[in-house]
């Protein structure tokens, strides 16, 4: 369902590619974890998939539509079917939970309605449903700034689910949470994605999490794929290959974290 071919991107003013000739084919319903050290290019790769980062070359086909070649409106339409969750939640802190979740319905609404904050009954219904699903029932009129970190990420997940996505991208979705919440949030994402057969691609630092939640691990080092396979096939040698013998290897790469 997602076919990435020869994707390369280098940020302005850098002398190394952030993503270097990556080709990857992901089937519907796969749970892919992109594993790598800080600065390995995993986040850039993820952001290329929904074109938040405009890659320099290569192609990305989503349901056999090339998002990189698509015109503005078309690429917005493709992007709409891809939900995204972020490390820092990226919610409007001063707005209510409901207002944030409703933003996931923007793609079903005209620009004018958005300017006046108008949403249909169905949008509201959908938002409340998704909030119930992530366990935030009754909090819809709470201000986001009053919530805990774990609750905020649940709001972000509800926002992504409101898009009715085929794919969910997770850009280090649990990195700013404590270990207990990390597990809760990963459990939530995984169970929903299995239930709805949503393809999920997540960047993670932690080897343990990757092994537990992924159906497939893609290891990245300096923008290139160095491992691609089932979590069970990952050897000690592969792990060193992915992280290098860096600080990250000591912190995240060893089991038993």
């Amino acid at each position, binding site marked *: 369902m997602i076919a990435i071919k020869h994707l390369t991107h280098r940020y302005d003013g850098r002398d190394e590619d952030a993503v270097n000739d990556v080709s990857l084919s992901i089937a519907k319903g796969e749970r892919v974890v992109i594993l790598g050290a800080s600065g390995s290019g995993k986040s850039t790769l993820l952001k290329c998939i*929904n074109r*938040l980062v405009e890659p320099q070359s290569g192609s990305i086909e989503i349901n056999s539509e090339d998002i990189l070649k698509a015109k503005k*409106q078309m690429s*917005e*339409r*493709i*992007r*709409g*079917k*891809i*939900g*995204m969750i*972020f490390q*820092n939640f*990226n*919610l*409007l*802190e*001063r*707005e209510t939970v409901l*207002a944030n979740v409703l*933003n*996931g319905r*923007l*793609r079903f*609404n005209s*620009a004018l309605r*958005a*300017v006046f*904050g108008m949403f249909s009954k169905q949008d509201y219904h959908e938002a409340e449903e998704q909030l119930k699903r992530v366990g935030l029932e009754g909090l819809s009129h709470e*201000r986001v*700034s009053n919530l805990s970190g774990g609750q905020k990420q649940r709001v*972000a997940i509800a*926002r*992504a689910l409101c*898009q009715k996505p085929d794919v969910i*991208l997770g850009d280090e979705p649990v990195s700013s949470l404590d270990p207990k919440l990390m597990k809760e949030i990963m459990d939530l994402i995984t169970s929903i994605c299995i239930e709805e057969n949503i393809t999920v691609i997540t960047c993670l630092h932690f080897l343990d999490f990757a092994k537990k939640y992924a159906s497939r691990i893609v290891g990245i080092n300096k923008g290139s794929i160095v491992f691609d396979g089932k979590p069970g096939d990952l050897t000690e040698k592969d792990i060193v290959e992915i992280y290098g013998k860096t600080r990250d290897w000591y912190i995240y790469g060893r089991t038993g974290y």
Partner: protein
Amino acid sequence: MVHLWEDGILKGIIPLSEGWKKYRSFLIGIVIAIIYLWAIRGTETSISNFAKGIPNMVDFVKRMFPPDLSNIGKFLLKAIETLQMAIVGSTIGALIAFPLSFLAARNIMPRKMVYQAIRTLFDIFRGINEIVWGLIYVSMVGLGPFPGVLALATHVCGALGRYFSESIETADPELVNAITATGANKIQVIARGIVPQIKPLFINYSLYYLENNFRAATVLGLVGAGGIGMELITSMRLFKSREVLTILIIMVGTVMLIDRLSAAIRKRVVGIKKIA
């Protein structure tokens, strides 16, 4: 602190060779003294001139007492008109500044030409004082409060436009990314991702300018652009010193009242919400 002054600031102003370095502070002192002497000479500022004027001042103040309250009703109505000018002028200015400010924000407007043009327009509106705008509009639409409203609106449009566009540029790009990622189009991203972030700043600046505009509106009358300032200049020209005092008291009183009111509103609108 000494380090910063000696190494950072002074070095930047006067680059000196090693031998002269120890005299640097002394040299700076001389330069500053020369600037002051030059400015004082140019403006004929002198204590003796001031002393010579004191008897005149005492006489002027004496003639103002007691305040003449016979026309107070009319003056109060004029004070209300001044307030109305401030309200209408600020609102028109803010309403025009708001959409334009998005075109003058670098993170939204990719075309440098448009961005620069709008910024320059804001600078012209803001750079010319309300009084000068008042003079211009009076000659265009005649005497009365309407040219005053236009003058306030023009100046405020420039000032708020500048502030608005600068606050739009401070919007968190990650949050904007998050809204973009939902498949929203550009207008939706602005309305739902950027405006909510900067709304409190917008409200705060607008209220501040409403307050400011009332003060500005009191003097706009001096050039014939309506409000209580018009009464002030009339009474002064007719040497009705006791009326002048009444008007001054009303002016100061109303300004104080507006300041209090605006501070209270701002506290309610902005202060009540915690900043994340």
